[in-house]
């Protein structure tokens, strides 16, 4: 399969799965509740998955990671931690990338 076909199949499957999750309790599981342990586990899905994605995409060797990239990610991380705002993370990170590259 080509990259695009794989991406299309994955898109449809993830889309269908997403709708099933969004409707799960509204339809099939109405009136039921999560066991507390599952509810607890779901709270840590976002930080765990995002950290796994950042490491996997950033350090697999497919892209060369130089000082500019490292600086941009650090600045983006600090700005995200302080502001919790995605637009500011993007602006701060991209500007850092461009400035460090221009200075090098």
């Amino acid at each position, binding site marked *: *399969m080509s*990259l*695009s076909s*794989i*991406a*299309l199949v*994955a*898109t*449809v*499957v*993830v889309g*269908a*799965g*997403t*709708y099933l*999750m*969004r*409707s*799960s*309790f*509204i*339809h099939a*599981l*109405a009136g039921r*509740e*999560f066991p507390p342990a599952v509810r*607890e*586990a*779901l*709270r*840590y*899905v*976002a*930080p*765990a*998955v*995002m*950290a*796994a*994605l*950042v*490491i*996997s*995409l*950033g350090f*697999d060797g*497919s892209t060369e990671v130089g000082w500019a990239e490292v600086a*941009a990610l650090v600045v*983006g991380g600090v700005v*995200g*931690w302080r502001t*919790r*705002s*995605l637009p500011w*993370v*993007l602006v701060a*990170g*991209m500007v850092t*990338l*461009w400035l460090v590259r221009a200075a090098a």
Partner: protein
Amino acid sequence: MSVHPDVRRGLRDVIPVLVPVVPFALVLGLVVAESRLSNLVGWLGASVIFGGSAQLTVVTLSAEGAGLAAIVAAGLVVQTRHFMYSAAFAPVFAAQPRWFRWLGPYFLIDQQFALTSLRMDDPPASFRRYYLTVGSTFWIVWQATVALGLVVGPVVPEEWSLDFAVPLLFVGLLTAAIDSRPALVAAVAAGAVTWATLGVPNRLGIILGALAGIAAGVGASRR
């Protein structure tokens, strides 16, 4: 022309929430346009998945040549938080007509939950108008902005390195998700296990890392 107060309230509330979403959707479109993937992946995903972080995950992993199983697993794990939204809304939707019980969940994205969960105690018809106003406005802006990114993508100079916006977005989502000490433990453990399993084919290390991180988060919260 008179606009229903519930509709007006929905429009008023959704606009500030849209501000951070617009650059996200734009980057998503740009990244698809600049990748080796067909633009169809961007168009289709925007409506079929209708969720930024999951679509970005699918797009990025696909463009990097990950295996289908790993892409689907990572995309679905990113979305598991929607179970919580669905559970929270089940009693509210029980009082709604059938067509709305089928249509409503489609719009149940993070921002939709954040806004409409504040209206759970409104009368059903009022809740429905508010919910549909917020959801459809969000949907239209999302589709239009992803489309804009897809169209503008080829025109943006390569020296701008806009593809770097993707790791930045994931870093931004990561810092937003770390809202407690156990969440920090979850992130560190997931990162470490993913690092240690970088050699595992098809990027299944992401799933191993995520599972380890979730377990570590639960463990840390119990101490």
